[in-house]
């Protein structure tokens, strides 16, 4: 039974989190707080991916806002078109543009295509970027800097394309979410539950990845990339896989963020937003299973509440958080409470 606890303990922890998020929270929180928690869950979904790429894979992804944005904008485009009605075009194109819609918006009328795009677009983008970067063995700090530059460039691009993406204002004023009226409190609760459910699902996915041989290989690549090459694996492929999965998770987080926050704009996806995501992961514990998700929720909550009580001091908190956590608890706060449960790589082999 001991090995059962070791193997499935994390799953029990995920289940506890699932109950908290899906049963307890909706029962006790006001609609406003629940909606906020929904946003934190979206960040947490992205954070789970960062935990995979950074904590396990050693790739410091400083530009996850880009993939968060791809998912967010893809979903927002669909919601915009849904709000505009059949044949309608988004209001901002009439206001700021010449009233015509770019052709690449058209497929997003279809909900099915949008869902497909939310997964496929970040996967393709991450695969191309990752292929270019990992195959040429660009790594470590270079990689981190490139991803951050990507986030800066992405935000600039969005701000400059007013007629296509709404520019600085972003996309907002959604009315329906796949046919459900977003102003109905019942439906808001449903959207929240989907986000929380997706978070739980992503956690189960990484749990399986971490206990798989791929998970071991990823850690091995993080610790000794060249050595892995002489095990007959191309480390670039191992990292690429983790990077792509992380990108897809960020995209899913972004996709749920748009209907929950009611807006997606460049400031939700730029370099600052990306660093905000990293902060949660660092706080929670980058290499732990639940660390990144809990950290992201904590940082999101901190941002809401601290900025309510100390509006001017929030930046100090965030800055101090980085310094203190990296300096004192590089493995994250969760490592302090870290029982064997979520500490994965040392899992005992099942008896032969």
């Amino acid at each position, binding site marked *: 039974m001991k090995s059962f606890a070791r193997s499935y303990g994390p799953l029990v922890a995920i289940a506890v989190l699932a109950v908290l998020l899906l049963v307890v929270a909706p029962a006790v929180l006001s609609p406003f707080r629940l909606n906020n928690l929904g946003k934190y869950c979206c960040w947490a979904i992205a954070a789970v991916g960062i935990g995979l790429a950074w904590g396990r894979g050693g790739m410091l992804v400083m530009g996850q806002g880009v993939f968060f944005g791809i998912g967010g904008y893809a979903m927002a485009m669909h919601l915009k078109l849904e709000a505009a009605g059949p044949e309608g075009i988004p209001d901002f194109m009439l206001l700021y543009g010449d009233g015509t819609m770019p052709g690449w918006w058209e497929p997003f009328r279809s909900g099915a295509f949008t869902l497909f795009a939310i997964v496929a677009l970040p996967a393709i983008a991450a695969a191309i970027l990752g292929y270019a970067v990992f195959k040429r063995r660009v790594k470590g700090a270079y990689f981190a800097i490139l991803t951050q530059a990507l986030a800066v460039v992405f935000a600039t691009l969005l701000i400059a394309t007013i007629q296509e993406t709404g520019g600085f204002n972003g996309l907002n004023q959604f009315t329906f979410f796949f046919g459900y009226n977003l102003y109905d409190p019942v439906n808001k609760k449903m959207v929240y539950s989907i986000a929380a459910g997706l978070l739980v699902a992503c956690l189960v996915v990484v749990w399986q990845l971490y*206990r798989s*041989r791929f998970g071991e290989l990823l850690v091995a690549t993080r*610790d000794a990339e*060249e050595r892995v090459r*002489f*095990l*007959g*694996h*191309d480390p670039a492929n191992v990292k690429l896989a983790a990077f792509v999965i992380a990108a897809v998770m960020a995209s899913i987080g972004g996709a749920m963020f748009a209907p929950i926050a009611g807006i997606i704009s460049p400031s939700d996806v730029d370099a600052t937003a990306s660093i905000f995501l990293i902060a949660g992961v660092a706080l929670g514990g980058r290499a732990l299973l639940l660390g990144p998700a809990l950290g992201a929720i904590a940082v999101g909550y901190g941002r809401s509440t601290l900025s309510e009580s100390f509006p001017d001091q929030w930046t100090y908190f965030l800055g101090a958080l980085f310094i203190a956590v990296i300096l004192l608890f590089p493995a994250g706060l969760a490592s302090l409470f870290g029982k064997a449960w979520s500490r994965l*790589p040392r899992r005992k082999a099942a008896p032969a």
Partner: protein
Amino acid sequence: MRLPHPNPDDLGLDYLEVRGLTVDFDGFKAVDGVDLTLLQGRVHFLIGPNGAGKTTLVDAVTGLVPATGLARYRNQDLLSVRSHKIVRAGIGRTFQTATVFEELSVLQNLDIAGGVHRSPFALLRARRGVPSYVADALETVGLADLRDRPAGVLAHGQKQWLEIGMLLVQDAKVMLLDEPVAGMSAEEREETGALLQRIGEERTIVVIEHDMDFVRSFADVVTVMHAGKVLIEGSVAEIQASPEVQEVYLGRTVEGTTHA
């Protein structure tokens, strides 16, 4: 002890042939037109003073540094193939400093080397049970008792054996070992030598080594390198008899023991 030199044709294609291999570091030829034929079933030693180009030669064959010339194994030119594909083709190597995954257990280290046996999709499954090729390697290198220890706590010699075990799991037909017995006790060297002979029967083993006692005890063929070139190749006795070798290399190190 010595095996007769087999004819390459009897062995099919399982030999590594190096022709005119040259590694040029911005004008400095670290390896300069080396020809070698490394046959299966023999323990082949590569010796020479520091800077002779031994490690660079191995680096070139395993894709770590770009080189010109030819390194052929099973009709494949290794110089045009990336490192991990060379490994998948059956050529494995170790490094001067043992590089095992210190946080992983001995068993996990061996298991992770078994990638050649798995499809990418199979990687998504958790490991359960011990695959037979891992169990075999564990026995062969004598680490069965330590299988659940983190590799980081192993003694230096044990790490080297673990690395050899990982090569076994990889199913490497050609093993390029860079100073595997450096820092080992005499007893450990004996065990390592015996291990190499045991596994060398069906494989091509190439060992870079400085320790002449070890070379004398276990070498089937010795190649002496100097300044990027092959100085001489032959049996231990032939090498020791060579005046050139005496001059550049053996002269100092082995003089005392040749009389013994």
